[in-house]
C-alpha cells in the first residue's frame, strides 16, 4: 500500500465521521417530528401528501399494522415497477425506442429495486427508457430507502417507549424520511454531480465521428439480433468498420444521487459508477463514495439521540468503523500487490508517482487502487452495491473482502435503516451472551431481552444465512445455475457465492462475470431478495412491538454498559465470529483456495 492509499482512506473515513454527526442529529429531529429548519418549505408539501393520500398524521400503529403497511406499500411498488417496464415501449420519454423488458427480467428488477437491493441483470443504456429509469427505478431508490429508515425508526421507538402498544405511523415516517432527508440531500448531490460531468438530459443519445476509425471482426447478427452460428457452433464473424461512437445520455445525475444516498446502488448505465458519465472525476468519486455510507453512519447518531444516550449510537458506529477500516486496508493491500501472473510477463505493477500500479484489471485509471478498494469496501459494507471497479477481477483476497462484508449480514453500516436494525439485532444477541456472562437477565437500553426477542433475532440471522447457503447450493448443483458461471476453478464458485450473498443481503453488487439474466437467476434472485428484505423487516418490527410493551429497567452498576469499548469489542467479536464461522467453509472453496494457489 502506498502512503496515498492510506491518506485517502483516512481522509474518507474522517470526512464520514465528521458529517455523520450533524446529519444524524438533523434526522433525529425529522423523525421526532421536531422543527428541523426545512418546515417552512416542505411542511405544506408534507401536509398536502397526508391530505391527498387520506393519511391521519396522528394515528399510531402497532407493529402488525406497521408491518402490513410496509408490505402493502412495497407490493404496490413492485406492481407499478413491473408494469412500467412491461409497457415502457408505449410510454413517452423513450428516445431510444426501447421495447418492453422481458417478464423475467422485469420481475427480478422490480423486486430488486423495491427491496433496496438494486441487483442489475439489465444494462441501463440498452434496456431502460428514461421514464422507467426516473419514474420507476429512481422512485424506488427513494421509497425503499425511506421504508428501511422507517422500520429502523419504529425499532428505535420500541426501545424508547415503554408500556406502549404502538411504534409510530409508517406513512408519516416514510413521508418525512423522503421529504426532509432524501430529497434535499439528493437535490444538492445531483447538482454537484452534474458539475463534475454526470449527464442530466432528456435528449436522444448523440452520435459523434471517431477521431480514428477502427476495423474489427464482429459476430454477424441475424434479424433477431442473435449471433449467427456456423456448423461447428462458433459464431460467424464478419468485418466491420467502426467510424462513429454513440454518446448515451439521460437523467442520470438525479438518479445517481439517490442511488448512492439511499444505499440502492442500481446504476443508470451498465457498469454503474465505473462509467465515466456516472462518476467522471476523483471528486465525484469522493462525493458518491461518501454518500454510500453517509446516511447509514448518521443513523447511528440519530439512534443515540432518539434513545436519549448518544454514546449508544457512537458505540455501534465505532464497531462499524473498526470492522470496516481494517478490511478496507486488507482489500487495498491485496489489490495493490498486483497479479503475480502478470509480474512474470514483464508488466510493471509497482505504484509510483506516474501510475497507480497494482491489479488494474477491471479498474479505471482515474481511480487507481485506493479509490476502487475504498469504494468496494464501502459499497458492500453498506448494502449499496454500486461499483466503480469490477469485483470479479479483484485478486482473490481483495474480492473476498466485499464478499465477507456482505456475509457479515449487511450490518457494518448496511442499508439505510436496514443496516442499523440488523446491527441492533446483533447487539441484542451480543447483549444476551454478554449479559449472561455478568450474571443478569440481559438488558439492552433498559429493555429486558427475553424469549421472544431471541426468537426473532435468531430468525433474522438464520434467514439470511439459509438463503445464501441454500441458494448457492441449488445453483452449483444445477445446470441452470452453473451455466452462468464465467470464470473457471474456485473463482467460478466465488461468483455464485457472491451472487447469493448479494441477493439475500440486499446488496446488489456482483462478481459480474456471472450471467444473471437467465430464467433461473432472475427467478431465484427475485425470491431471495424478497425474503432477504421482508423476512427480516417483519421480525425486526415484531421485536419493536415487543420492546415497546416492556417496562424500562433503570440502569445500575450491575447492568452491562453497552457504550463501552469492551462492549464494542464483544459486539465485533460476535459479528465477525458468526459471519466467519458461517461462511468459512464456502470461502475456503472460493477465494481462500484461489489465493493459496499463488503460494
Amino acid at each position: 500500500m502506498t502512503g496515498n492509499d492510506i491518506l485517502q482512506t483516512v481522509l474518507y473515513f474522517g470526512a464520514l465521521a465528521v458529517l455523520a454527526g450533524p446529519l444524524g442529529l438533523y434526522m433525529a429531529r425529522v423523525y421526532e417530528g421536531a422543527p428541523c429548519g426545512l418546515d417552512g418549505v416542505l411542511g405544506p408539501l408534507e401536509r398536502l401528501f397526508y391530505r391527498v393520500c387520506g393519511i391521519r398524521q396522528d394515528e399510531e400503529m402497532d407493529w402488525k399494522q406497521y408491518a402490513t403497511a410496509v408490505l402493502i406499500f412495497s407490493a404496490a411498488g413492485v406492481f407499478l415497477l413491473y408494469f412500467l417496464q412491461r409497457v415502457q415501449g408505449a410510454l413517452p420519454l423513450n428516445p431510444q425506442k426501447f421495447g418492453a423488458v422481458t417478464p423475467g427480467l422485469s420481475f427480478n428488477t422490480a423486486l430488486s429495486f423495491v427491496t433496496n437491493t438494486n441487483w442489475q441483470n439489465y444494462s441501463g443504456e440498452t434496456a431502460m427508457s428514461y421514464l422507467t429509469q426516473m419514474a420507476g427505478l429512481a422512485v424506488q431508490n427513494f421509497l425503499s430507502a425511506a421504508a428501511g429508515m422507517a422500520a429502523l425508526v419504529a425499532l428505535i421507538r420500541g426501545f424508547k417507549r415503554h408500556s406502549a402498544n404502538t411504534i409510530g405511523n409508517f406513512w408519516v415516517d416514510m413521508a418525512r424520511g423522503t421529504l426532509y432527508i432524501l430529497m434535499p440531500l439528493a437535490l444538492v448531490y445531483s447538482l454537484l454531480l452534474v458539475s463534475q460531468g454526470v449527464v442530466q438530459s432528456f435528449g436522444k443519445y448523440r452520435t459523434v465521428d471517431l477521431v480514428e476509425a477502427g476495423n474489427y471482426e464482429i459476430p454477424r447478427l441475424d434479424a433477431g439480433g442473435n449471433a449467427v452460428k456456423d456448423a461447428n457452433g462458433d459464431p460467424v464473424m464478419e468485418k466491420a468498420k467502426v467510424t462513429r461512437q454513440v454518446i448515451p445520455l439521460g437523467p442520470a445525475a438525479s438518479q445517481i444521487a439517490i442511488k448512492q444516498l439511499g444505499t440502492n446502488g442500481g446504476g443508470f448505465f451498465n457498469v454503474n459508477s465505473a462509467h465515466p458519465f456516472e462518476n467522471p472525476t476523483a471528486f465525484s468519486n469522493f462525493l458518491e463514495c461518501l454518500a454510500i455510507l453517509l446516511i447509514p453512519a448518521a443513523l447511528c447518531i440519530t439512534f443515540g439521540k432518539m434513545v436519549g444516550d448518544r454514546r449508544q449510537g457512537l458505540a455501534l458506529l465505532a464497531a462499524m468503523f473498526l470492522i470496516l477500516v481494517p478490511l478496507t486496508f486488507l482489500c487495498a493491500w491485496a489489490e495493490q500487490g498486483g497479479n503475480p501472473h502478470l509480474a512474470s510477463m514483464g508488466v510493471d505493477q509497482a505504484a509510483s508517482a506516474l501510475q497507480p500500479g497494482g491489479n488494474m484489471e477491471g479498474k479505471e485509471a482515474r481511480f487507481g487502487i485506493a479509490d476502487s478498494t475504498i469504494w468496494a469496501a464501502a459499497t458492500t459494507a453498506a448494502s449499496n452495491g454500486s461499483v466503480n471497479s469490477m469485483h470479479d477481477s479483484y485478486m482473490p483476497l481483495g474480492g473476498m473482502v466485499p464478499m465477507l462484508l456482505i456475509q457479515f449480514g449487511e450490518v457494518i453500516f448496511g442499508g439505510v435503516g436496514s443496516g442499523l436494525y440488523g446491527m441492533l439485532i446483533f447487539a441484542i444477541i451480543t447483549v444476551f451472551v454478554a449479559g449472561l456472562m455478568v450474571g443478569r437477565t440481559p438488558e439492552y437500553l433498559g429493555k429486558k431481552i427475553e424469549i421472544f426477542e431471541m426468537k426473532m433475532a435468531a430468525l433474522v440471522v438464520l434467514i439470511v444465512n439459509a438463503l445464501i447457503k441454500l441458494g448457492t447450493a441449488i445453483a452449483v448443483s444445477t445446470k441452470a445455475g452453473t451455466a452462468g458461471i464465467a470464470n473457471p476453478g474456485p473463482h467460478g464458485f466465488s461468483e455464485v457465492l457472491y451472487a447469493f450473498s448479494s441477493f439475500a443481503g440486499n446488496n446488489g453488487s456482483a462478481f459480474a462475470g456471472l450471467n444473471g439474466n437467465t430464467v433461473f437467476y432472475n427467478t431465484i434472485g427475485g425470491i431471495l431478495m424478497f425474503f432477504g428484505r421482508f423476512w427480516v423487516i417483519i421480525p425486526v418490527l415484531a421485536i419493536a412491538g415487543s420492546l415497546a410493551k416492556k417496562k424500562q429497567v433503570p440502569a445500575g452498576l450491575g447492568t452491562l454498559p453497552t457504550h463501552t469499548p469492551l462492549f464494542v469489542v464483544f459486539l465485533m467479536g460476535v459479528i465477525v465470529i458468526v459471519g466467519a464461522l458461517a461462511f468459512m467453509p464456502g470461502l475456503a472453496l472460493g477465494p481462500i483456495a484461489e489465493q493459496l494457489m499463488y503460494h
Partner: protein
Amino acid sequence: MSAKKIKRSLFEPKIVRRALLDSVGKLNPVYQIKNPVMFVVETGSVLTTLLFLHALITGRGEASAVFILQISVWLWITVLFANFAESMAEGRGKAQADALRKTRKDVVAKRLSKPARDSGVTQVPSSGLKKGDVVLVEAGDIVPMDGEVIEGVASVNESAITGESAPVIRESGGDRSAVTGGTLVLSDWIVVRVTASPGETFLDRMIGMVEGAKRQKTPNEIALDILLAGLTIIFLLVTATLLPFSIFSVKAAGQGSPVTITVLVALLVCLIPTTIGGLLSAIGIAGMDRMIQANVIAMSGRAVEAAGDVDVLLLDKTGTITLGDRQATLFISAPGVDEKNLADAAQLSSLADETPEGRSIVVLAKEKYGIRERDIHALGAQFVPFSAQTRMSGVDLNGRQIRKGAADAVEKYVQKQGGTFPAGVRAAVDDIARQGATPLVVAEGPSVLGVVRLNDIIKGGIKERFAEMRQMGIKTVMITGDNPLTAAAVAAEAGVDDFLAQATPETKLKLIREHQAGGRLVAMTGDGTNDAPALAQADVAVAMNTGTQAAKEAGNLVDLDSNPTKLIEIVEIGKQLLMTRGTLTTFSISNDVAKYFAILPAAFVSIYPALGALNIMRLSTPQSAVLSAVIFNALIIIFLIPLALRGVKYKPLGAQTVLRNNALIYGVGGLIVPFIGIKLIDMLITALHMA
C-alpha cells in the same frame, strides 16, 4: 441424620456409578429430542454407525471402515458425556432427596374430632390426613403433616429438614406456629391443624425440587436454547451445503473427491455448540443444588434465576443488619453526678436483669470503671422486674431505689417523688436518639443520675457486604420500625443505600410496588404472617423456615437456616448460574475457530491441495485431524463438568469488570485452548497409529 451436613465431593463414587448407568438410559431419542443440540449429535452418531456398517459389509464405504468406526464411537461418547454431566447433576440432587425421603415415613397420626386437646382421638395413618384435619402431637411423636399449631407449645427437633439439631420452640399464635411434617416433637404437646394435603407437603415439594422432577426450564434458559438451536441450524446448513459445494469444486478443480458424509457429520458435531448444549441442563440442576447446599429450598427454578437479577434488596434491620439486641456503649451522667456513680447504679439495677441489654450494662460498667459484678442476693437487694405499667426495671437496696427505663417513664417516676428531670439529661436523651441509639435513663429516688446509651450493634462484615452489593448494582434498603431519626443513623452506619422507617406491612408493600413500577426487581426476606403480602409481591421472596405457614406459602424460596443475610448468598448463586451459562456458550463458540483449522484443510485438501496451508496445527493426516477435533470436542465436555457443577467463580465486581474477565478467560481462552488440545490429541493418535 442431617441433610445439610452431606457435603458431597464432586465425584462421589456412588453418584458416579448411578450417573454412568443413567447416561446410557438417556440415549433414548425421545429423551434426547428435548435438547436439540445433543439430538443432532445422536442423529450423527446413528448415521455414522450406519455408514460404518455399510463400509464393513460392502467393503465399498466412503472412507475406511476403521476411520468411520472411530468417528462414530467418539460421537456416541460425546452424547454419553453430555448425558453423564446431566446425570451427575441429578445424582447429587437424588442423593439429597433420598436422605429427605427417609424422613417421610408414614406415621400414625392422632386425629382429634374437635380442635381441642381433650376431644376424642382416632388413630389414622398420616397419608390419610386431609387439609383442615386437627391432630395431636405429643412428645416422641413425629409431626404427621405440615400444619399450624393451634394449641399448646412444644420443643421440636427439625433437623430432618434444616439439618440444625438444636430444638426449636413451636407454639400457637405468633410467628412460630408452623410445623413441618417429618419433624420430631421432643417435649410437651401441640395440637396442629393440617395445612397441606398428602403429596403437597413442604417435604414433598423439597424432594421434588432436588430431584429435578418438577424442574421447568427458566425463561433465560429457553432464550439460550433458542440461540443454541439457531446456531445449530446455521451449522447444519453450513455442513449440509458443503456437500454440493465440494461436488461442484471437484468438477471445477478437475481433481480430488467430494467431502465424505462422515467428515461432514464430524464437522457438524464439532461446530454446533455441544459444550454448552451438553452441559446446559447440568448447569441448571447444579444451580438448584447449590441453593440446597446453602440450605435454601427454591420453590421454582425461576426464583433462582430471578435472584441473579435483583436490583433492590429489602432487609429487616433487626437480625439482619444489626444483632438482635442492643448494647450499652456509653454512660452520660446528669449534671453534678459522678459518672462512676451512674455506672455503679446502672450496674446494680441490671444485676438481676437477664436481658442482653441488661447484661451489656453490667459488662460496660466493669470494662469502663472496673466495677466488679456483685451478687445480688449477697447484697440483699430486691430486684424490681420490668412491668408494662411502670416500663422500668431496677433494684431496691438498703433503702436505695434505683430505676432505669425510657426517658418519659423515668421522668414520671422522679416527678412523682418530687424530683425534676434535668435539662442536661433531656438534651443527652435527644442527642442519643438522634444518633440512632436508645437512651435508657437511670434514676435513684427523685434524682436522675444520667443516661445509658444503648446502641444497635451492626453485624460484623455487613457493611462490606453492602459495599459488594453496591458494586454489583444492587440497592439495599433497610426496613425498620424505628423512627426516621434512629433509622437514618443506623442506615448510615451500616452503609445501606436507603431505609424505610416506621415500617408497617402496608408501607412495605407500597415500597415494593414503587420499585417494581420503576422496572426494578425486588428481593426481601420475611417470617411473620404480616410479611406475607409483601413476600407475595416481591420478585424474590425468602421465607424463614422458622416463620409462619403463611410466610412460607408466600415466599418462593425458603431458608432452612432462617438466616436473614442468606439473601445475599442467594443473589450470588443466581448470578453464578447465569454466568456459567454465558461463559460456556462463549467458550463453546470460540472453540469452533480451531476446529475449522483442523477439519477444513483435511476435508478439501484433495480438491485444492493449496488449502493444506490452512493446516496451521500441522496435524499429521486428514483422518487424524478430523478424529482429533472430534475427540477434543467430546473430552472438553468431561473436563468442564466440574465447572458446570460448581459454577463459574463469582466475585462481586461491576458488570464491566466481570465481562472483561470472563471474556478473556472463556472467549480468548476458548479460541486458544482447542488449538493446543487438538494438536496434543493428534500427536497421541499418531503415536498410537490410530489414524
